[in-house]
């Protein structure tokens, strides 16, 4: 039984990294296509990671490395809690709340290592990253709470099974508003345009990634990939029924990603105060109304 | 009408008391206030004596053998007044000395000006 668990864990982690990197490559390819140019090959992210690993990186101290490892571990562990189609390795040990908390390890890890790098630009980037995270957390919390109140449970696996019987929660009457709100904040969670001011290549000099090179850049990209995967998988599991087996799950994932990728390709990048103001205006209002609807209907 | 004739002494005593109080309340000069006090005290003594008075009563002293005890005035208020007068003297003496000292310090006896100890 333990071997099955270990296999599942390996399978889920590897697959999620692959899916994440593939999606980054796909997004580059799609943006290029929309911009009427060919764009780099789909496997470009994999090539980059291999290249970065072969370079010698510059490190600023033990916490600089530990912070990066800590953040990637956080993301990897979150993936284990998310059901991948039918498989959810750490099913019984804590539901959405644990996922929420584990999701904050990643930004914290990067913040610590960027802080250690003692580069003022990196600190500016970190403060922006945390502000953005706080921006979308406001609505994300309300959405998750409305879901949990609606399904009367904390664990994500129960929510997926409930959706299998009674259909996608996106279409359930009381959850539509929350679903809409979630759609609005998805770009911020995944860190793609219009909320790309942290990961964006142009912002590299004043983002948290300022001091990262070689291995660290590889880890950062992996962490970004996992982040995209987590955002999407949360959306799919909570609102689109999560897929009875891995295949359905991946298709839904891809479709959802395609929708946001189109927005990513054409939208400009917000400044941080525009981003926070935008996140706190409409999505927060929708999420709040959603929560009230759910609260009223299920009391 | 008999009220006035019956209580003339009391009315006299109380008017002295009220006059004394009026002086204390209204006057600015410290010496006048002290005089007001002596009037106030005299009024009280008169009232005390009036309480003990008996119509056509004689002084309670058996100087001659043949005096009738029934007609004598009540001696107790007189004893009280004796004590009260001496207390009045003592207080007035102290008041006068303090007035002198006030004049030595402030150069004036006007109570409206002696206001350093306030609030």
């Amino acid at each position, binding site marked *: 039984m333990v071997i099955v668990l270990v296999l599942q864990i390996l399978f889920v982690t590897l697959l999620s990294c692959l899916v994440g990197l593939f999606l980054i490559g796909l997004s580059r390819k799609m943006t290029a296509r929309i911009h009427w140019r060919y764009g780099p090959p789909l496997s470009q992210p994999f090539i980059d990671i291999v290249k970065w690993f072969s370079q*010698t990186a510059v490190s600023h101290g033990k916490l600089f490395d530990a912070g990066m490892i800590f953040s990637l*571990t956080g993301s990897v562990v979150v993936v284990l809690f998310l059901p991948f189609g039918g498989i959810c390795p750490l099913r019984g040990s804590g539901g959405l709340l644990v996922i929420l908390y584990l999701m904050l390890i990643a930004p914290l890890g990067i913040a610590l290592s960027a802080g250690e790098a003692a580069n003022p630009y990196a600190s500016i980037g970190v403060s922006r990253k945390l502000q953005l995270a706080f921006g979308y957390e406001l609505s994300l919390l309300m959405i998750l709470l409305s879901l949990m109140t609606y399904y009367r449970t904390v664990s994500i696996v129960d929510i997926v099974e409930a959706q299998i019987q009674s259909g996608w929660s996106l279409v359930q009457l009381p959850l539509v508003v929350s679903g809409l709100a979630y759609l609005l904040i998805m770009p911020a969670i995944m860190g793609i345009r219009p909320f790309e001011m942290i990961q964006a290549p142009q912002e590299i000099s004043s983002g948290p990634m300022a001091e990262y090179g070689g291995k660290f850049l590889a880890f950062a990209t992996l962490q970004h990939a996992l982040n995209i995967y987590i955002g999407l998988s949360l959306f799919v599991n909570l609102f689109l029924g999560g897929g009875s087996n891995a295949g359905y799950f991946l298709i839904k994932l891809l479709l959802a990603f395609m929708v946001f990728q189109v927005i990513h390709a054409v939208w400009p990048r917000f400044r941080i105060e525009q981003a926070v103001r935008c996140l706190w205006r409409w999505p927060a209002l929708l999420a709040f109304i959603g929560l009230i609807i759910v609260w009223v209907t299920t009391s | 009408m008999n009220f006035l004739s019956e209580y003339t002494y009391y009315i006299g005593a109380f008017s002295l008391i009220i006059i004394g109080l009026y002086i204390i309340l209204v006057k600015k000069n410290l010496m006048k206030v002290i005089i007001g006090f002596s009037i106030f005290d005299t009024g009280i003594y008169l009232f005390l004596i009036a309480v003990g008075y008996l119509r056509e009563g004689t002084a309670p002293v058996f100087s001659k053998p043949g005096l009738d005890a029934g007609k004598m005035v009540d001696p107790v208020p007189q004893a009280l007044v004796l004590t009260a007068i001496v207390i009045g003297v003592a207080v007035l003496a102290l008041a006068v000395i303090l007035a002198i000292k006030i004049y030595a310090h402030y150069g004036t006896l006007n109570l409206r000006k002696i206001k350093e100890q306030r609030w």
Partner: protein
Amino acid sequence: MKLEILLAVVFGGSLLTYLLGKISKRARDILAILVLLAATAGIASLYGRSSTAILCTGFLDFPLVLRIHPFAWIFALTIAVVGLCAVIFSWHYIRKKGRTDFFYFMMLLVISSMIGIVLSGDFLSFYIFWEIMSWSTFLLISYNREEAIAAGMKYIVMSVAGSLVMLVGMISLYTQTGTLVFEGITRNLNSASSGYLQFILILFFVAFGIKNAIWPLHVWLPPAHSEAPSPFSSVLSGILIKIGTFGFILLIYGIVQVQVFVNLGHALFNVRNLLLLLGAVTILLPTFIALLQDDAKRLLAWSTVAQAGYMILGIAYGTSESLSGGTLHFFNHALFKSLLFMVVGAVEFRTNGVRDLNSLGGLIKKMPVTFAAGLIGVCGLIGVPLTNGFVSKWLIYHTLIVNHSPFLAFVALLGTWGTILYSYKLIHHIFLGQLPRKYEQLNAAPVSMKVPMIFLSLAVVVFGVLPGLPLHVINLSEIGFGMEPLAINMWGVVTGSGTIQMLNIATALTLGGIVLWLFFRMGRKNTRADQLDNYAAGAPVPADRYQYSVKFYDPLTSMIAPYLKDTADNFYSALARGIRNVGNGIRRIYTGDVGNYVMYIILFLAILIFIQLYWKVW
């Protein structure tokens, strides 16, 4: 170890420390630590036992009773442990300052009076120890002279007001039930009307609310904690605030019985909802005010106010899970908050008095151990999974969501995210970023400070990974209160609608970490770069040292700052000014002119006569 011997040891010890201090400073420090060690051992030996002891037969013909039960045991042990760490911490910290005997005497007096409160079995001894704690805290808060005086004054005025309200409540309970002993009150309180119960709850709510710094009554806490000497502010913040929580639990669960409390009074406007609402506000507002602070200890003080809100939520909610969440959060908060204050204290000690976040930075190079302790403390504060804060917060969220009050849960979760922001700000401004030139020769924190820090950080992690230890004792106390305990095992909580198993999370994180660390070492060896050799993407590298700390979360903070003016504080200072003006006005009655004074006498006489003539009072 009998209860009254324990109290005698602790109180006698504090007096002895003061006297010994006159002879030799070192002996006094050692004695202080021994006294607290003895207290911790004594309390630990009382584990699981619930017994009563008579302290003194008749104080104004009221018996003074002492009582130990599992619930009081947790509080007593936390007080003793955190007190011990604080005293060890102050070994070096206080040496150079003046009046050290006074400091140790007051410190031990505060700790012993807190233990007294927790062990008291009746309201009178509870009140006596409560007052001793208040005035000894007052003397300690104003220890640091200049601004500490205003902070001390604000503290003592509010705590005297609070304890007077409690005294009135206590005596009205006596008139109602005829006794002051807790068991007696619970026995014959059921006859009381619900209106009377609500009145009593409001009174005690004000008294405990002031000590527990609930939102409108929290005004004294930020200045008090930031001005008090650091070892004391870790005691003050760690456990003294929780005496209010202890009072709440004692009142709601011990005396008024929770099922009575829950459905007391009107459906919507009852004491429980008021408490919950204020608890929520206490979480939200202070968290974001903490974000705006630039002084390290003031930031931590505001964070204490916020964390106290979690406990109030836990306690006031009424289910056994929420109670265990609240109590566990008390226990965890005591650990990591006193740890954080010690970290800030160590930094303040080394940089002799610098607490301003904007003028520190990059101290990780110079004080690595303090940084590590600070990091663990911050993770505990946030509730990062491997630390103890996570379990208690999870319990509170879980009860709130399952029992269908999502808005409270939303406020609590938002509070957690606010905590993340200001904790990172604390860690970043002090330890990360560029080291200012003047701190280049800074050396690490002295050993006497490192020991308690390491001990507390270990405790934070151990109880994070093994929450079963404290939860087991909390279950014992819940049985004591007549509530069904929580289904727990060594690694976590197993409830019907959602379980957490720290074992899985811990192994997942550690294994993932090790694998990734190996993956990380697989590549080429990194070259170390000096701290100041930074990449500026072509822009000219600034010559001297820059630390990005002023207006750290600027767009966000400037957006929420207008809503965060501390209205309660303005209200109280306006009240104080009003009383002062009234005082000034009234003393004008004594005009100094004898004529007026004599007029007053005759006026008094005339009024009395007028009353008789007009109303025939006689």
